């Protein structure tokens, strides 16, 4: 391990040395006076602050972290019809579809259906499920017409965003009503899903606008290994809206909310001893909604915001009804202090009530109430104007799940000139243990021992400690001439106290019928060192023609920290290699063609199977290559038509299997699609 990192360092040092010889003109954050005297040509060259990594608007190219933004243009040129599918275009992101309505998504490894290291936010509202420790991506089925942009940070952002922002942050920002005036109807028909979305926005007065939307998605069953229709599938109906009021020039009040309801079918692990259908066939439902109020006060150089939200999510699956209600109050402020310091600070209070009910309770804590109080402060300290910026910050939090936690970060950005920047960072972040690790009870039937039936029970433990990560990162960005740019990032993470299962002695229980039981408690059983590199080369040849190539390679080395039979649950579960290329070409006025090709290496299955869960042939995810192609045509009168296909290279492939998820994976078929969009 050490040798390998030394090698990496020895490779990067000469590069750094060369870069140090570079020097040039520096870029500046432009004030009103500077803008007034700038030439029109200069104005067209100035870039807009789009990154909100540090909870303030800043230039993406001056962000001391691995950042990527999915713009509306990217969305328009993508074959994706849902947010999880859109994330495939993000360098360093591992997106794997598990079944019709389930995805395993993570960055920098440790992927799973219950990936707990990625913080996903919609307009500042967290989507992290504290029961499952992860994100249910089927609850994120916003119509893409409503998405303003999606900002993705790889690596820890816990110093300002808090727990679970360990390996990345996905920040989904929806359109303001003023940007969604008019009516848009869009519909997609394909092998994998049918979708109809309607959005409508209108001004209600001089300073008041609203938008409303409705979305229906029907996700069709995927396939089994031999090409038959699988049992899975999901349909959801969602409706919502938002009102914005610009009370004064500086103040904006906004109120948003939505509701959704859906039905799901899935295959769960066959060994689970809860009454479900044959082959683990399980039928369930989801429902939920939120209300989010936000008051923003923005003057030239300072800004502050107060947000209050209430969120209610229910999920019925495996004969278990889970409901989480969250109330959250959040304050954040941004202000320059003197010439050199730029401060961001804030605080949050969150109260969550989890309620679990059902014929077989999969928990020892059916009523669980918990709280979180936190505060953060981060300072951008300018050491050399526009050249060298030191960012120091930390979040302090106290809560029922993770206890008292300090999550600091130190970042240094050096911009030798306005075309390139080099950054490095050291941070600590924690994963707040979910109810799953603390209080889960999952009974399993795992075969027979000496002719006696054998049962096992996975149990959470109250003494489970938060997993933590110390992350060391570095990156380099460069804009070449003629629209060519490069973004490189490397990381080395020391992950501690990873979730594992300890296998105790067999016990023979004579009643009611003689059987053998094993207890499988959750323990902090492993440590891991993970490392890797992410590279993106993008080339905007001219308006209407662009290319992107990205390569991510990453791996981890795990170390058992407890003696005895301990099996890792939080396995790396990420291909060593992930390469993609995309091209977008407007070959004639009003006609464009897009291609996306992605090769992912195999995911090696960890040895979690001491539970006796039987792996069948094909129960792993081999390497696969995915090709999406489509052609779009703007017919006129606001009518756009897109036709194409996804997964064109093979009839079907499996994308994920790590043996620890309760959801059984299916095969993703080749699919043709037709999308129509009408805006008026």
């Amino acid at each position, binding site marked *: 391990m050490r040798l*390998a990192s030394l090698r990496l360092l020895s*490779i990067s040092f000469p590069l750094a040395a060369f870069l140090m010889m570079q020097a040039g003109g520096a870029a500046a954050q432009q004030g*009103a006076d500077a803008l007034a005297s700038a030439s029109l040509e200069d104005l*067209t060259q100035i870039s*807009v602050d789009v990154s909100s990594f540090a909870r303030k608007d800043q*230039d993406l190219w001056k962000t001391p972290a691995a950042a990527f933004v999915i713009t509306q243009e990217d969305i328009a040129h993508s074959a994706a019809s849902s947010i999880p599918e859109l994330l495939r275009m993000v360098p360093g992101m591992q997106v794997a579809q598990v079944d019709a309505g389930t995805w395993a998504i993570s960055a920098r490894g440790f992927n799973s259906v219950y990936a707990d290291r990625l913080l996903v936010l919609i307009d500042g509202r967290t989507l992290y499920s504290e029961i499952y420790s992860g994100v249910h991506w089927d609850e994120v089925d916003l119509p893409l017409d409503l998405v303003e942009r999606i900002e993705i940070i790889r690596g820890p952002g816990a110093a300002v965003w808090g727990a679970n922002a360990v390996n990345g942050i996905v920040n989904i920002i929806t359109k303001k009503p003023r940007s969604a005036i008019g009516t848009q109807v869009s519909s997609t028909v394909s092998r994998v899903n049918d979708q109809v979305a309607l959005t409508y926005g209108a*001004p209600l007065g001089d300073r008041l606008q609203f938008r409303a939307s409705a979305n229906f998605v029907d996700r069709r069953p995927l396939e089994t290994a031999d090409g038959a229709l699988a049992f899975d599938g999901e349909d959801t109906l969602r409706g919502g809206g938002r009102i914005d009021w610009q009370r004064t020039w500086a103040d904006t009040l906004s109120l948003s909310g939505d509701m959704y309801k859906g039905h799901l079918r899935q295959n769960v692990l066959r060994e689970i001893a809860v009454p479900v259908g044959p082959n683990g066939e399980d039928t369930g439902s989801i429902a939920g909604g939120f209300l989010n109020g936000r008051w923003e006060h923005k003057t030239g150089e300072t800004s502050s915001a107060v947000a209050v939200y209430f969120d209610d999510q229910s999920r019925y699956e495996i004969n278990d009804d889970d409901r989480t209600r969250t109330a959250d109050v959040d304050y954040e402020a941004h202000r320059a202090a003197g010439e050199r310091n730029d401060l961001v600070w804030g605080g949050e209070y969150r109260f969550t009530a989890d309620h679990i009910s059902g014929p077989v309770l999969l928990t020892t804590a059916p009523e669980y109430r918990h709280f979180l109080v936190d505060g953060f402060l981060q300072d951008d300290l300018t050491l050399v104007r526009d050249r060298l910026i030191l960012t120091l910050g930390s979040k302090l939090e106290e809560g029922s799940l993770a206890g008292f936690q300090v999550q600091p970060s130190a970042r240094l950005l050096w911009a030798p000139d306005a075309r390139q920047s080099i950054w490095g960072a050291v941070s600590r972040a924690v994963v707040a243990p979910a109810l799953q690790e603390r209080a889960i009870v999952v009974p399993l039937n795992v075969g027979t021992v000496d002719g006696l039936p054998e049962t096992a029970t996975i149990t959470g433990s109250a003494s489970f400690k938060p997993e933590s990560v110390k992350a060391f990162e570095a990156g380099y960005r460069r804009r070449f001439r003629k629209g060519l740019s490069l973004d490189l990032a490397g990381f080395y993470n020391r992950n501690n106290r990873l979730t594992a299962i300890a296998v105790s002695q067999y016990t023979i229980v004579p009643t009611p019928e003689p059987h053998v039981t094993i207890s499988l408690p959750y323990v902090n059983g492993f440590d891991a060192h993970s490392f890797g590199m992410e590279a993106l080369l993008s080339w905007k040849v001219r308006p209407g023609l662009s290319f992107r190539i990205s390569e991510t390679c990453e*791996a981890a080395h795990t170390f058992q920290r407890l003696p005895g039979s301990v099996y890792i649950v939080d396995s790396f579960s990420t291909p060593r290699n992930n390469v993609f290329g995309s091209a977008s070409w407007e070959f004639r006025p009003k006609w464009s063609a897009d291609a996306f090709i992605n090769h992912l290496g195999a995911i090696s299955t960890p040895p979690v199977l001491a539970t006796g869960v039987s792996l069948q042939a094909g129960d792993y995810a081999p390497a696969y290559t995915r090709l999406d192609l489509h052609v779009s045509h*703007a017919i006129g009168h606001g009518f756009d038509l897109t036709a194409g296909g996804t997964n064109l290279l093979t009839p079907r492939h499996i994308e994920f299997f790590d043996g620890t998820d309760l959801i059984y994976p299916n095969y993703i078929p080749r699919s043709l699609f037709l999308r129509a969009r009408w805006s008026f």
Partner: protein
Amino acid sequence: MEFILHHRALIRQVCAAWSFTFVMWMTSMPAPAQAGTASEDALRAAMLLNMTRFIEWPTRKLDVDHGQTVLCILGADPIGPSVDRIVQSQADGGKPVQVRHLASLDAAAGCHVLYVSLGERKHVERSLPALVDAGVLTVGESSNSNTPAQLIGLPLVDDHIHIEVNLPQAQRAGFTISSKLLRLATVYH
């Protein structure tokens, strides 16, 4: 050592990637200096004001009644405060600019420039051609492909604000747009 042997492939790739970067960097040529960054509203406000220097209005807008360039902003638009700030900071040089914040289109025919807030776009789309004929330079935040009736669009594309000019319509209404501006703009024919 065993680890290195085990991860040979990965290490090879890391080396390849870094060497690739290195070659890319070595072969790259010095690039023109980049102007910095700004907030979207401030940038759009500065462009709007700056553009007026490259436009000649139809003669009926240049008489004694029009001693000032009247810049109107329709609806509550976040660029408003930025426009005010820039106009206050540049009292000297060029034709004076007067900023009016309009709540409706009633008085819009007297403007030289009418900036239509995104929220108002749909409201006024039908009235735009008449205003253009009356010598009002209509400017909007959205792209000209979404609002064909406006003369100039200032959409955000990736992280830059682009200038789009609907040239045939502008010429028909008697505007003369400097080639300097057209060179920086996407021209719709």
